[in-house]
């Protein structure tokens, strides 16, 4: 029961100093899952590196070191080597992380907000409104996800902005469905009924009773989806639908290194590893959060 999280809260909150101890207890349970902790560590490092890129990156990401093309890892201080035109790969990964994270996290957050609105409306109102919203979203399930993203970005034209729009489109149906299912199962539960009996209007019921119970599962789902969207965004960039030079993200780095695959595979390998690592890390964090919110589902 996802709903039990919020219902149980007041009982715990009754003891003094409760918010701190609740947080501590939650952290304790999260920390027991070593995969989640490793995931969180990776996400933290990558996000910090991206934010402070100019201070963290050892070299200028765009400077082309003459005579150092496709240098292997470790050569002349280039920890991960250089790419096909002699640029430092590590620095490019750090700066590229800004764009890669931006085009995966932003659409997920925006899509979550849209889905929250649609899902709450459909789940709370029920009846015709529910039917219309959900049937319209159902159509999107008939597409392979990546293909729909390629269609939208392909029609709009390349660039990070359109990449973000395409990802929002593919996410909203999935997220809205999760919110709606959650709301529909909560709508007739006792605590909502009780609020209604005390004279709470729809706004109050949605804001005070439904929203707090929906937001947790949605955040978990969004975290897992960010991992998946890192892959989708990288795929779009790889396909030439994302960043265009001189700007570059991880997916684009893989594509531009494709030409030197037979002579210097590390040019392709480094950004590839980065994509997989960060996608996995978000997945682990999401799984850890899910166990936190749904202790009964443990072992799944």
């Amino acid at each position, binding site marked *: 029961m996802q709903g039990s999280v919020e219902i149980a809260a007041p009982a715990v909150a009754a003891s003094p100093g409760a918010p701190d101890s609740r947080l501590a207890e939650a952290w304790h349970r999260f920390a027991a899952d070593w995969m989640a902790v490793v995931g969180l560590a990776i996400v933290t490092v990558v996000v910090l590196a991206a934010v402070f890129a100019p201070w963290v990156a050892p070299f200028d990401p765009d400077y082309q070191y003459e005579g150092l093309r496709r240098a292997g890892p470790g050569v002349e201080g280039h920890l991960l080597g250089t790419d096909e035109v002699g640029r430092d790969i590590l620095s490019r990964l750090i700066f590229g992380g800004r764009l890669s994270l931006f085009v995966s996290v932003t659409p997920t957050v925006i899509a979550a907000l849209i889905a929250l609105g649609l899902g709450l409306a459909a789940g709370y109102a029920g009846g015709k409104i529910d039917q219309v919203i959900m049937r319209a979203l*159902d*159509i*999107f399930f*008939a*597409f*392979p*996800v*990546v*293909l*729909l993203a*390629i*269609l*939208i970005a*392909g*029609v*709009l*034209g*390349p660039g990070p902005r359109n990449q973000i729009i395409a990802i929002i489109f593919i996410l909203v149906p999935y997220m809205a469905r999760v919110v709606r299912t959650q709301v529909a199962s909560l709508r007739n539960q006792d605590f909502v009924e009780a609020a209604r009996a005390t004279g709470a209007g729809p706004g109050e019921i949605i804001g005070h009773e439904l929203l707090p119970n929906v937001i947790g599962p949605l955040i978990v789902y969004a975290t897992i989806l960010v*991992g998946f969207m890192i*892959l989708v965004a*990288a*795929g779009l960039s*790889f*396909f*030439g*639908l994302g960043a265009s030079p001189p700007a570059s993200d991880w997916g684009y780095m*893989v594509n531009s290194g*494709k030409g030197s*695959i*037979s002579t210097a*595979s590390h040019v*392709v*390998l480094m950004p*590839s590893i980065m*994509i*997989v690592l960060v*996608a*996995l890390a978000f*997945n682990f964090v999401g799984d850890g959060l899910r166990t936190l919110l749904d202790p009964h589902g443990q072992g*799944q």
Partner: protein
Amino acid sequence: MGRVPFAGRVYRVLAGYAARRLLGAIPVLLGVSMVVFLCMQLVPGDIAKALLGPLATRESVEEFRRYLGLDRPIPEQYITWLGRALRGDLGLSFSSNMPVTELLGDRLRNSAILLGGALIIAIPLGVAVGLISAIRRETPFDHAAMGATLIAANIPTFVFGLGLVIVFAVQLKWFPVQGMTDLRGGGGRLDLLNHLVLPAVTTAIPPAAIIARMVRSAMLETMSQEYIKAARANGLPERTVTLSYALRNALPPIVTISGLQIGFLLGGAVFTEYIFAWPGVGDALYKGILARDIAVVQGAVLVVAVWFVLVNLAVDVVNLALDPRARG
């Protein structure tokens, strides 16, 4: 024996169900066509100009605008477009100067070859790994398999494909780097097969990993049921319990999951075809995007999406044949 009439009845039920599902697929297909059509409204600027390409003259753009009916309301435009699409007219590709349908024709066959190869690998591999993991749960095999499938499910197709190229084509030289046939003296079945291995494996592995994980959890779920305990308590051999009892009942979810993975496979194949220069629909899609040839992009996505809907339909019917409970 009474067996034949029973089989005949099952067959009739299935045929009826298939027909009903086919009818039910029509609104879905209409929805898909609507989404593909409406995406064209996202084209920045003049659609007619975008479809004809940068070299079109002002007069031809004007004429094309009338042909598409751009001055009429959107629902009317959609019906005109749908009517043409149903007759196999998906417009003209300006970059290759040929009808989109003609351009996609051969490529559809090539994509089908790739997908067939990938399916033959993905489903048996995924089901086998999932089954063994479930039967030997919490053993080193299970842990290794679940770790590997977790990583494999998170590797984008293009990364995995490039990895395979590096190892098996560039370093070991076991398979060709790209293409579908050898330009010199190629073309035989063996040559095709040789070219097919890496692309098929690339497309197959991520879905296979997801299938394996789902099969494992579906099997564990069934194996915890009471009737399995009862079968064990009755002293049935473990092999009979797992294979005849548990697997048979876990089969419907397994088929559903495998069916869903075909969508994943179709999306992945787009990247595979680009990496391996496999002349399929995905490769056409990539070239269409590069040239901003919107008609090709639209046509390719429409064809693949329709394919996806039909595959899901087939999966439903297969499931019905396997699971009498779903026949209703």
